[in-house]
């Protein structure tokens, strides 16, 4: 049985993942910034979970680095331990919006890169202290190759993916398993309004892939899996093609 903290577990892929955990008997703590949403999701997980499953919540805001440590400590107490930390929360905006609004761009870069890493550092220390654990973070296929529609968002995610690879190299032998999830296009509220490309996934399907990767300790996982092939092809494209390509 796992004791899992999920930052961003009230919505989208985090919500789907939290449900999979409790349905098989894992204990889950939801971290987020909206107390009402946390309470609603807690009730949902308690109703769906196998009997005896424990669900906790804690306030934590990726925009506020001071909230990280108390939040992790709080839910660690509530679950009487913590062996898995998952981060699905992030800020997303289209390239056009980010270009027009430097304040939003700064917020996205800070939250998705710097603050996410600071949160992971807190989680890493906690997990290493107990001897072992899994840190699973949702990066993005956008970080694999710089592309026109995701110049800024992709830059933040590329940095995050590099950090997670570094953690894997440095700490796997000490017991920390790092899982970097690279979702392709997934139909959630985050991507609402964007044109839906081929191979778009849905949150339940992604959750299944991710939970298998967490159990297996896979360092990098694409979800849906077809995106590994898609990104391999895109990474192989020469610059002159990428300058003309629309994607």
């Amino acid at each position: 049985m796992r004791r899992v903290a999920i930052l961003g577990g009230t919505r989208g892929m985090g919500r789907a993942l939290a449900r999979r955990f409790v349905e098989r008997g894992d204990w889950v703590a939801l971290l987020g910034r909206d107390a009402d949403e946390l309470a609603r999701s807690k009730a949902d997980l308690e109703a769906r979970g196998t009997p005896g499953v424990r669900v906790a919540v804690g306030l934590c805001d990726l925009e506020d680095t001071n909230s990280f440590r108390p939040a992790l400590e709080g839910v660690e107490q509530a679950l009487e331990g913590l062996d898995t930390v998952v981060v699905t929360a992030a800020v997303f905006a289209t390239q056009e919006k980010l270009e027009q609004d430097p304040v939003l761009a700064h917020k996205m870069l800070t939250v998705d890169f710097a603050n996410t890493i600071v949160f992971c550092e807190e989680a890493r220390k906690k997990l290493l202290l107990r001897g072992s654990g899994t840190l699973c973070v949702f990066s993005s296929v956008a970080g694999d190759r710089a592309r026109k529609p995701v110049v800024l968002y992709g830059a933040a995610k590329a940095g995050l993916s590099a950090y997670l690879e570094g953690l894997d190299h440095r700490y796997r032998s000490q017991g920390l398993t790092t899982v970097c999830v690279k979702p392709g296009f997934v139909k959630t509220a985050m991507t609402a309004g964007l044109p839906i490309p081929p191979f778009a996934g849905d949150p339940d399907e992604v959750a299944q892939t991710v939970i298998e990767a967490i159990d297996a300790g896979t360092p990098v996982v694409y979800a849906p899996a077809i995106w590994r092939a898609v990104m391999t092809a895109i990474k192989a494209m020469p610059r002159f093609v990428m300058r003309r390509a629309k994607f």
Partner: protein
Amino acid sequence: MANTRIGGWGRQFVEGEELQPETLDGAPPVLFRGLGRSYGDSSLPAASSPVVVNTTRANRIIHFDAATGVLRAEAGLSLVDMNRTFLPRGWFTPVSPGTSFVTLGGMVAADVHGKNHHVDGCFGSHVTRLKMRVADGRVLECGPDLERELFLATVAGMGLTGQILEVEFGLRRIPTPWLIQESERVADIDEYIACLKQSAKDWPMTVGWIDCLARGKSLGRGFLMKGRWAQAHEAPARFPKELPNIRMPFTAPEFLLSRPTVQAFNFALYNSHWQKKKVGRVDPFRFFYPLDFVQDWNRGYGKRGLTQYQCVLPDSAGSEAARRFLEILSARGGASFLCVIKDCGPESPAYLSFPKPGISIALDIAVRDDTQALIDALNEHVLREGGRIYLAKDQFTRPEHFKAMETRLPAFQEVRAKWDPEKRFKSAQSVRLFGD
């Protein structure tokens, strides 16, 4: 967000914008829709108000009482999700429609019925509370004993009285997740109706299928299926496997549903049931949702899509009413190849609830040039017999026909106007049939 094509299950599309938030708290005051399984334009936005809110991401369970079975959940929770969670624990919805791809909100708004209507009524009669947001922005609770008028207009109200945010109802204990099914071959429509009414006395669930292409002496030949939950000693201890999921990969060409192919299919189906009676154990997925395992099966009806015609013919019209109906259908030649006939129990107090004592006939019809004329002819017949149609299926009924059939419409419109005087909540269907 750019406009997209929004369609019902019959694949008749309109232009509009479909929002899909994860929480319904800040949703704009427009029509809600769920999984879009109503066949016609019930869940489509009106041209004058082209935005709809899709509730399917608001799918959290609020509370489940494992002692009593009372479940309260957000309106976007789907039946397929509910079954995955609660069937293994021995709980099932008191009323299930023929697909599990429906939301709780949709089940209330259409007041769906199932194979057990003659015993248990519609879904709405099992609902104890609705949490709603009405046109003036107030969020309130209603139920059979609270704001009763609003409740009775919202059940079967097709989303026109306000936004259904949460639904509370009682799940039912089942002895095992398996069913005992008996199917019986019947030679013609008279035998079919007699069998249907007879089995309603002994079986909690009945439904049947008729070959609409058979004529003359075999008019109305088909099978009648009867079911009940299996008791522990009749069923294996294991949980039934869900059906495999396949997807209709393309929109089929029209000739696939032409008369000869369908005739061959029906002939094979009818003759595969060579015994007079078959009894067996069946899993709930095959029993309740035989079509759910083909995702997008509606694409099998080709580019122009399909419509379903469903009407109820009252007991007062006599047992001959079904024969007369089939004769009209048959005279028009092969418009539909399968029809589902089941019997209906008492009428619900909900203003626009479809069933009333009698028999319900449902047929899938591929949309063709003569579809409007066919529906008009069927409607005129149903009107003469004192019957009515089911809004959740309708796309082609003329407003004058509907108004003549639905004598409760003025009372419904009065309640609707009281709660939503500016008509913020309207659908393509409400504009077509009610005028607003």
